Each structure stands twice: as C-alpha cells, then as structure tokens.
C-alpha cells in the first residue's frame, strides 16, 4: 500500500493512501472535533458536521472525515472559517440539548464539554432558541438508562449494536427534527432482545446512554468503537 505525506497544523504526517484526514490526524494525536466518526467503519457517517478543516488552496472548509489525505496536502484544523462553521454546528446541537452539566453523569467525561473547550463553542446558546424535545427517559434496562433528549444522533450506538446482526436492537426512526435513536417499534430498551452487552453505552459521547451505577471503570472510548 502506498503512503502519502501531508502536513496537519504544521506537523508532518505519513498516512496510508486512502486514509481520511480525520483518521490521519487522530492517529497522530491531533484532535479534531468529532462526534459521529467510527474508526472501523469504512464509510464516514458525516452526520455531526463538526470536523471542518481548511485545506491550503481550497476556498471552502471541508469535513475531515470525508476527505482523503493526499500527498503534499496542507491541512489547518484551526482555521477561523472552519472553526466558525464547527461552532455553528455545535451551537445548533446545544440549542436542542438540555444543558445541566452539574447533574449529568457525563460531567467531566462529556465529549460535548471537550469540544466546547477545543473549538471555543458555547454550551449555553445565546444565538439560537432552545428547542427541546422533552421525550420520556427509558429506564427499563437493568444496566443502563437511555435519555433521548441528550442524544446528538451521532449513530455510534446504532453502528455498534448492528455489528451483532442477529440481535441488533437499535436503529433510527422518524425524520428531520423528530429523528431519534430507538428500538424496533419503540419497545423498551430493556426488552428481551437486548443482550445487555452495553457496548452502546461505552460509545455514547454524551451519556444519553449511561450506566445506572456510574462509570464502572469503562470510560468513554471515543472514536475507537
């Protein structure tokens, strides 16, 4: 396999041909804000729209998860235009996220907090109006709870659950603003089909899926699902 050399934020990096910029950056300890990226999934979700970067010679920012690294490419993850777009996307998410960090199990390990810090985004939006969905919390599983209100629809839990083809439980339902992660026909998440493997909990960046007894030593695994 051929490799390519590129520079990200001034750091020289070599990556396998065909690698996406996001992966090349994360594997070299350069953080780019992301919620929906999954290391082992070939096709990017490209759903969260936070990993915008600037590429020298290109006018518009691009999402790092969809663009392949090429030889000689010069990437800037701190460009103002890219960060501005990422901040808007982030603020849109936060405008529909019930922000109550002090009483949230994710406090301190929450990916949203990390992103806010990294891109200078706001946890409490001033720019947009708060549009909450006020969906019921599912408490039926013995191991974890599911609070759809905190969900940012990154799709990591759906993907990891779907790796168990026979027993997969999670999926998306509804369109637009009403889109939600749910089970078939909306049956309780503690239903018999769930193997209680709790893989979905470990990959949730916001603790919309959270262990009932706290973290249990299984910290958030980030994009390495």
């Amino acid at each position: 396999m051929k490799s390519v050399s590129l520079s990200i934020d001034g750091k020289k990096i070599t990556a396998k041909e065909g690698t996406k910029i996001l992966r090349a950056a994360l594997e070299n300890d350069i953080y780019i804000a992301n919620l929906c990226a999954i290391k082992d999934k070939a096709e990017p979700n490209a759903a969260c729209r936070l990993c915008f970067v600037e590429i020298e010679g290109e006018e518009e920012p691009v999402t790092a998860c969809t663009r392949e690294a090429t030889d000689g490419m010069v990437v800037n993850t701190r460009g103002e235009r890219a960060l501005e777009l990422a901040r808007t996307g982030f603020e849109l998410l936060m405008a529909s996220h019930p922000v109550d960090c002090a009483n949230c199990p994710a406090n301190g390990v929450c990916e949203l907090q990390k992103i806010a810090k990294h891109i200078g985004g706001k946890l409490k939006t001033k720019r947009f109006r708060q549009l909450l969905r006020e969906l019921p919390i599912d408490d039926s599983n013995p191991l974890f709870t599911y609070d759809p209100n905190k969900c940012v629809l990154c799709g990591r839990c759906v993907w990891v659950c779907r790796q168990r083809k026979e027993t997969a439980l999670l999926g998306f339902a509804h369109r637009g603003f009403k889109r939600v992660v749910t089970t078939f026909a909306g049956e309780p998440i503690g239903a018999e089909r769930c193997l209680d493997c709790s893989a979905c909990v470990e990959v949730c960046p916001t603790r919309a899926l959270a262990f009932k007894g706290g973290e249990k030593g299984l910290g958030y695994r980030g994009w390495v699902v």
Partner: protein
Amino acid sequence: MKAAERAAVADAFKEIKERAESRWRELWHNKPVIMVGTATCGRAAGALEVLQTFRDEVKKRNLDCPVIEVGCMGHCYAEPLVIISKPGYPPICYGYVNPVIAERLLKEFVLGDNPCPEFVIGALEENDIVPSFTDFPRAQYEQKIILKNCGHTDPTEIDHYIAGGGYSALAKALEMTPEDIVDEVKKSGLRGRGGAGFPAGLKWEYCRNTRGRPKYIICNADEGDPGAFMDRSILESDPHSVIEGMIIAGYATGARYGYIYVRAEYPLAVERTQIALTQAKKFRLLGNHILGSSFNFDIILFQGSGAFVCGEATAMAASIEGKPGTPRARPPRMTTEGLFGKPTVVNNVKTLAFVPPIIRNGAGWLKSTGTKESSGTAVFALAGKIVNTGLVEVPMGTTLRQIIYEVGSGIPGGKRFRAVQIGGPSGGCLPEPALDLPVDFDSLRDAGAMMGSGGMVVLDEDDCMVEIARYFLEFTQRESCGKCTFCRLGTKQMLEVLNDFTLGQGKIEDIDSLERLAEEVKAGSLCGLGQTAPNPILTTLRYFREEYEEHILMGRCPALMCRQLIAYYILPDKCERSCDACVGSCTVEAISANKKRIKVIDQEKCVKCGTCLAACPPQYNAVVKLSPPSEVPKK
C-alpha cells in the same frame, strides 16, 4: 458488433417498425379519431367522464371511430382536452370539455359538418376553418423536443411510439460502439435536467470507465417539488421515450440493469410505465438479446414511498437497497460506488428523454438549439398566478418574461407581478428586474435560484414573500431526513424565526442572524437538500428585504397575506344598507348592522377567514383588508 449481428438488428427492427406503421396507418385510415387527454391533469378536471361519454356514444351509434387515450398536451389550464381528427379537416383541439360538450362534438362535428368553433382551443395545423396553435403568440417561443409526442399518441400503445420514429435511435445505437454514443452525448452538450446541470455524457463516461459489475442506470422520477409535474407528465404521456433513453444509456455505459425510481404517489405514471416496460420486453427491445444483438438490459420499476430526500442520488440508492433513505457523503461518486456499491448513472426523466432524439439527429442538432453552455430546451411546469398553467418547452436562453407573459399569457385578474419561484424548495424567488434573464443553468444560479427540476411558480401582488420563504422552509424542514446537524436543526431554527416574522414578531437584528445561519446551513449540510434549503430565504432576503423589515418594524404585511397582520374592514361609504350578504356569510357571527344598517365587523370575534370579502357583491366591494390591523378606524 459483427456485421451479421448488425444486419440481424436492422432486420428485427425493420419488422417491428413496418408492423407499427401499418397499424398506425390503419388507425387513421378514412375515419374520424377522438383523442382524450387522460393524464393526471386531465383526470382531475373530469377527463374520464368525457372519455366514457365518447365511448358510450360511439358504441350506441355503432360508429367506426376509435376513441383513444392520450397524455398531456401541456395546456393544463384548459383541461379536459380533446383532439378530434376527421378526414377533410385539420386535427382540432377542444378545451374545457365536459360530457355535454362531448356529446355535442360527436353529434355536430363527428357526425355532422360543424367543427364547433366555440369550443376550439386551436387546430394542430394551419387551415382556413379555425384558429391554429401556430397563430398563438406562444408558438413563436415553444419548441417541443421531449414533449413532442405528449398528448398526441397513446402512451399504452408501443406502436404509436414506434410509428413516430421511436426506438429507431436504439436500433441505430446498437450499430454504433458504446464509446461513440458517449462521445455523441458529450458533444451534444446535454446537461442533467434534474437541476444541477452536470454534463450527462461525462457522467456516462465516468461510469463506463469504472470497473465493477453489474453496472446500473437509475432513472430519477422522484419528483417532489411543490408545483412541479414535468416528470409525471412525461411518464404518463410518453414513457417509451424515457425507456428508450435508458436502454441506450445502458448500452453506452455497459450497464446490465436499470431502475426507474418513481413516486408511489404517481399511480398513473407507475401504471403506464409498467405497461410500456411489458410491451418493450414483448417486442424484444428490452431483456436478453435486445433486437437479436448480444446486448442484455432489464428495467425494474421501483416505487418510492414519498420521501423528498430520496430524490438525492445516494439516498435513492439506499432506498432501492432496502435501507432507510438517507444520503451519504460524496465522494465516492455514484459512478464509482453507487447502487449496491457498483458503478451507477443516475439521470433525470427529462435527461433520458433527450437521448433518443440526440442519437437520431446527431449531437450538432441539439447544440443548434439553446445557448452555448446549455444546449437544447428547458421544460417548465407553469403554476401559480398565471393564465396558462401547464407544461411548456422552450429553448434554453428564452427569457423569463417571454415564458411568463408570451407563453403563459401573464397574470390573471390584472394583478401585478411580484416574483417567480423557480426550482422549488431548492430554488429561489426572482423579482421583476430578473425577468429579462435568459433561462439557463448558469444564469439562474448566478441570480440565486436554480433550474431545479423545472417548477416555475408565478407570484403576484397578493403573495407575501416572507410567507413564501416560510412555506418552503416548512417543507424542507419536514422533509429533512435528520441525519446531519445543519439540516436537521438549522432548518428548524430558521423556520422558528420565519414563523415569528409572519406573526409580526422578532427583532430587526434577527434578519441578519437569519441570513448568517442560512449561509452556514448551505455550507455545512451533508447533501443537496440541506445545501439548497436556504435558497428561498436567501433570495427573498436579497430581493425583498424591505418586506421582512415591514413585517418586523411596522407589523405590516404588504401583500395582505399574513393573517395575524391583517384585519378585515367594511368601508361605510361603500356598504349597501339593503344588503346582508356578509352577515350571512360570516362563520363566527362577527358582523352586525348598526343603526344606519351599515355593517360592522367585531374585530374581537373575527377569525380573518375572508368569506365576507368573497361574499360582498362586486358592485359594492365594501370589504377590504388592512394591515397592520391598527389601521382599522376606531368608532
């Protein structure tokens, strides 16, 4: 292809063509023929009753007079339309036909000698008896290429299509090399009619040059824009032209299968396309060994279930694969990794319908019509506040003014033009000064709108531009699949702001922040739906910003459309004492007569339904709308 195979193809097609031509001649031989337009536009106006009347009368009198169903002639404003062709007369088109008129036409024209000029829309040929379509001002601008057969042949009869030259392009194509066909389409300058205007030949070439089998052709008939009905009409009126285009596309790109992705909400298009596919298969124009050659190609009709986003190519592929119809990031292009991961060409209905005439007449022929960068014609569905609603086909480069005022005969009721909405929810609203813009892919994009699939909605002085923007945003917001952040949440936020504006709420700064968010949703969204959803906002802000400001600063809707910002008022000078029409019409008993018998509206009770305005006799015209509501004089 070997010489022997070429000869076999030529022979096979000759046989089919001769039989079709003899059947066609037989149909017209020495007898009258009645053609009833029964596309959806005709049916909505009662064409099936008219058809039944003709059939009953013909049967009752035992006449040798075929009554056939045809598609849409484009004059949808005058539906139901009927063409009667009688020896000794030119074929004559009648409009607004109902069963009573149908009976008269049969008695007086088919059986008698009176062509009933009072019902005539126009004759199809110049003559000395009745006015013909060529005398219409619109004839000067219209040029029909892909709508040529629409309304003049029976879409369920493959022979009609073949007798008119149909499938000869396929026979010719099979004698050419695939590379030559791709070249021909490239040279013709044909650009994708789905809206974006990507060169069709280039797309075919990408697919052809990509390894991976089987390859697919998808015909995108998931037309979902409010006010657009071009693709539906073509599939209902001339499905074989699309099928022939697809088969040629299949041969040129090396594809084995084709899918026609059509909305299930188009039942007649589904039915007629399915009939056409079955016939093409029977005639060996489709399936294995097409026309005796070594080329195999099959087409499957796939019904989409009404998700607007499935018009996006990657979402469409997901939908056909049985997955939820959500888009994915591109690249990889569809021509590299498309349906089932294989190289796929997705072309719009109209793009494919252009292919047979290009192959028949050569690339230069299409190039000679239209503009340098956009060759050929553009098909528009005229709708909204326009006299001649319906389908038009004009060369690219025709101005909007010509289309609206000459072809469409302008705005009804002497109202003033306000804007024209082009390209549906992805397009934009253009104002009066833009009317002299030549219509082609690039000039419309520069103006902030886009060709879209071809919906053209004309708006007059009674249409509020803020409400129009809100309407389209509501549509895209509802149709957003919800996968990506900007489209799912950005459109929702924008809709909330617009809702406030139409209620006269919001702050003046909100206009700027709305514009900023619109630009960011455009830049940040994953697929075409989100990237174009802000266009109605951006264009109305660009051209009609003062209307937004009036809503917010003065609580006034200049078009008197936003209900919360208007009040109904009865002008005392004009109100007629002896008339009670408005009192009786009011649904909430808000109108009463005062001591002088002048009617007065109780603004507290009024729900602003507008029935009093409609009920007030035109000779008085006493009911008016006022905005803002504080304009209503106090007692």
